[in-house]
């Protein structure tokens, strides 16, 4: 019943029309690349950026044998990979100074720092931070770490202990590679274009064709609605693969991204466009006119565009949004792509493929069932 020849001839006509329409081509291929360039530029090296911390050193000495412990402490902090220390004149009102500089992270070193350290008396560091800001965690963690290091040093010196630290940390990144924001961004934006291109296009086409009676006309030919949808899906698979290669290329060559290109990506590049082409057709089918279709299409698309792990990792979102993300079909595309490209988590990838496959099947069947060539 389903004829490959008819699918192919419909594919030919549709793809040719698509390529002749500069607007569609822009959104299909150019737009995702622009997104990569913009977001890549914004966040280039973003994850390795250090947090600025204002530090007021009130330590007045004396410094026996020229030992300035407080200065050494700040130097150590500044040499860390997470913090840049900006010194503030001791005469400033520190909290006012922070407010004037719109800053929330700061450290105040007390006057007796060096003396107390050497004599073994307790001393107190004040760490300023804004609990709602992600940087304050980094600052308190880093300062705490170095405080412990100095504490340990003190006792080792005091008891002439030469035992090295029991627990030491070797810094390493996920997948033993240097992971940067761009590496997370590429799967996200590929997911973004897998969603938007077929979705918007099919919502538009299926509602416009209904209005202009083009579907009726096609129903008078041997072309079946299944064949019609199949040819659209194939085209968006082709477009997705082209977009994938472009985006990965730009990511690697322009931003030095490290993403794995594995055969595990193929199911996403096929199922993704199929799913959203079918979903677009479903929206265009169940709505009365192109205007309503556009509105419903946006209602369905926009939450996915931002909440399914495209621009921001899901893990950075509050719990209820993370839960919500799991009902968004795109989530399984972006999560799967991340698993395959960034984490190399194949068993996770397989689960995502399975979930995506089931969603695609359901939406496809619904779209074809509800879609009518002709009226009654």
């Amino acid at each position, binding site marked *: 019943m389903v004829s490959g020849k008819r699918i192919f001839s419909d594919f030919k006509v549709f793809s040719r029309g698509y390529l002749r329409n500069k607007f569609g081509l822009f959104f299909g291929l150019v737009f995702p690349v622009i997104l990569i360039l913009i977001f890549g530029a914004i966040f280039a090296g973003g994850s390795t950026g250090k947090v600025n911390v204002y530090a007021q050193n009130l330590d007045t000495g004396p410094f026996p044998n020229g030992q300035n412990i407080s200065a050494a402490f700040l130097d150590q902090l500044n040499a860390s990979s997470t913090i840049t220390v900006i010194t503030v004149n001791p005469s400033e009102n520190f909290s006012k100074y922070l407010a004037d500089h719109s800053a929330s992270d700061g450290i105040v070193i007390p006057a007796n720092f060096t003396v107390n350290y050497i004599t073994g008396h307790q001393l107190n560091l004040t760490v300023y931070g804004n609990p709602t800001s992600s940087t304050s965690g980094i600052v308190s963690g880093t300062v705490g770490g170095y405080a412990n290091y100095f504490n340990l040093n003190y006792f080792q010196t005091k008891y002439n202990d030469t035992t090295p630290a029991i627990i030491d940390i070797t810094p390493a990144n996920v997948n033993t590679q240097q992971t940067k924001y761009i590496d997370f961004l590429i799967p996200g934006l590929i997911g973004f274009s897998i969603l938007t291109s077929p979705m918007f296009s099919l919502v538009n086409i299926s509602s416009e064709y209904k209005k202009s009676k083009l579907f009726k*006309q096609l129903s008078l030919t*041997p072309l079946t609605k299944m064949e019609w949808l199949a040819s659209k899906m194939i085209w968006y698979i082709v477009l997705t693969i082209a977009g994938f290669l472009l985006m990965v290329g730009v990511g690697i060559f322009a931003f030095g991204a490290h993403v794995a290109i594995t055969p595990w990506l193929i199911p996403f590049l096929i199922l993704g466009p199929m799913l959203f082409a079918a979903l677009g057709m479903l929206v265009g089918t169940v709505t009365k*006119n192109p205007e309503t279709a556009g509105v419903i299409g946006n209602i369905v698309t926009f939450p996915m565009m931002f909440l399914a792990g495209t621009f921001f990792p899901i893990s950075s979102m509050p719990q209820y949004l993370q839960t919500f993300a799991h009902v968004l079909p795109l989530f399984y595309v972006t999560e799967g792509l991340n698993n395959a490209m960034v984490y190399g988590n194949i068993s996770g990838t397989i689960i995502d493929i399975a979930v995506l496959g089931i969603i695609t099947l359901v939406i496809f069947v619904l779209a074809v069932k509800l879609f009518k060539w002709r009226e009654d």
Partner: protein
Amino acid sequence: MLSIEVSDLKKHYGNLKAVDGISFTVKSGEVFGLLGPNGAGKTTTIEIMEGLRERDGGDVKVLGLNPWKKGYELHKKIGVIPQEFTFFEKTTPREAIVYYADLFNVKVNPDEILKEVLLEESAKVNFDSLSGGQKQKTGLALSLVNSPELLFLDEPTTGLDPNARRAIWEVIRGLKAKGKTIILTTHYLDEAQQLCDRVAIMDHGHIVAMGTTEEIIEQHGSGERLEIHGEEKLADYIKSNTDLQVEYNKAKREILITLRKKIDALAALAAAEQSGMEWGQIQTRQDSLDDVFVKLVSEPATEQGEMASQETDAKNSKKRRR
């Protein structure tokens, strides 16, 4: 042989009876016109015959097939131009023909079809850049790809300029000469007179007249009459000196004499001559299809039927009665 048999066909949209029990047949090789104002039920009727809509009652056989049940089979044998034909914007007529040929799995020479519909010059222009007439011709070209024996043309010339209309007529005449059966809807009466062997005039879902245009005019028109330009006294003179039925139109200063037989004209003229009065221009006139149409079609066109048949049209669906 009959191409189409329709008996007691009914279709309603909610309370609106778009088609209310119509019957007609169309012979093979005939050009049959469905006339009527907007909303008369023409498009609904034609779409039921094409298998695009399901009927609510009555019987329809197109080429011996039930169009709704056997649509897939039927569509291989018929050609259709829907009202306001549109196609993929960035596809040329030539590519469209090749596309249809692929879909129907037939071998055609696209240039031959383009020539047949007088569209050779625009063969490689994208559809969205074509003129209204060229778009309709593209529709005609596509309807011919599967060499159908039966063609449905739903308002093929609506909205076209006079030259474009004549060009379409020429194409349709060519198809008729090749022996195709053609069902045509139109609200242009001259078009029906020019092209159709027989017409049915529809109004509010009913057929109010059917036959050749001459038959319809004869049945429903006022018959032939002689018009003499002259004074009312002359009218009175003719009236009293003959047994003819004479009326006078004061505004136009015209004496109207109904001709039961052609020879009546001679009697009227003889009387006029005899009167010694002056008289001017004379002519014989007959009700045109226009006159009959206006008489038969009760009200000015309402858009209800049209609306119901265009469920997807947002503007219309708001006004539609349920």
